[in-house]
């Protein structure tokens, strides 16, 4: 018997909360939003849409630098934060 338990489904007795995923139309991924909830899934989506990312730290702050589509975007990160689907970092675009 081998079991790696997946994250359990949200109980039906709980109020479902949907994480604020970036609402980016398929043809607008070259325009990073001003603010977004960043998760591993979001980072994967950016990679899929032609971006690379790097991290930078300054003091206690984390920054995410997106590069692609002949431009760069920098986000200051707040987190980890939580919602009913797990944790995420809120990114605020600063450049």
């Amino acid at each position: 018997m081998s079991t790696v338990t997946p994250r359990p489904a949200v109980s039906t007795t709980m109020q479902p909360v949907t994480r604020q995923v970036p609402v980016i139309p398929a043809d607008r991924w070259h325009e990073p939003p001003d603010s977004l909830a960043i998760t591993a899934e979001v980072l994967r989506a950016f990679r899929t849409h032609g971006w690379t990312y790097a991290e930078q730290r300054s003091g206690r702050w984390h920054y995410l630098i997106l590069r692609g589509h002949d431009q760069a975007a920098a986000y200051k990160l707040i987190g980890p934060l939580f919602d009913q689907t797990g944790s995420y970092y809120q990114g605020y675009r600063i450049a």
Partner: protein
Amino acid sequence: MTIADRWPIGARASAASRVDDGAVPPVLHPLLAARWSPTTFDPSYEVTAAEVDLILEAARWAPSAGNSQPWAFITGRRSDPTHARLTRHLTGSSAAWARGASLLVANLCHRYVEGTDWEYSEFAHYDLGQAVAHMTLQAQALGLHARQFRAFNRTALAAEFAVPQHWEITTMSAFGRLPPGFPSIPESAATEPRPLRHRRSSREIRWVAGDSTSRD
């Protein structure tokens, strides 16, 4: 040292003896009072799949920061292939005793956001520990004992089960029944050379603001 020194006073009373009017002091719940961490298990006892499911269910319903649930578990019942893969990476003292457990569980912590070194939750280890505590008590309710341990090759075990870098195999737990006739607490405390049930007093664990004396 007497048994009474090692055994919480309240634990010797039945939880049923508790009354709400304050006449009788509250007592430690029997599941908590009887819990201890043996290194000897009944080599013939086989846990059922239903028992394993129930132990995992206890973890599933543990609280966590923001309901982040930063845990996962690899379970191996003795004589199944997963158990063999788990025991292969036991080290130190656990290699000698943990093989006899009916169930081995590797406790995984979701430490980082995948592809980054951002912590997934600053409470991830705390929450995993709490989930494992729930498992031990559920096991206790099933008549099983549990021992948590760290004596395993973390790197090799992670490779064995293809655990990605953003997860960590933090600890393992061994579950099983005591062998027939094996003395249970508190009887074993009387013969056990080590003070298994010794705990700091409740006075010692009450932190008094501004009092830094006698705390190393």
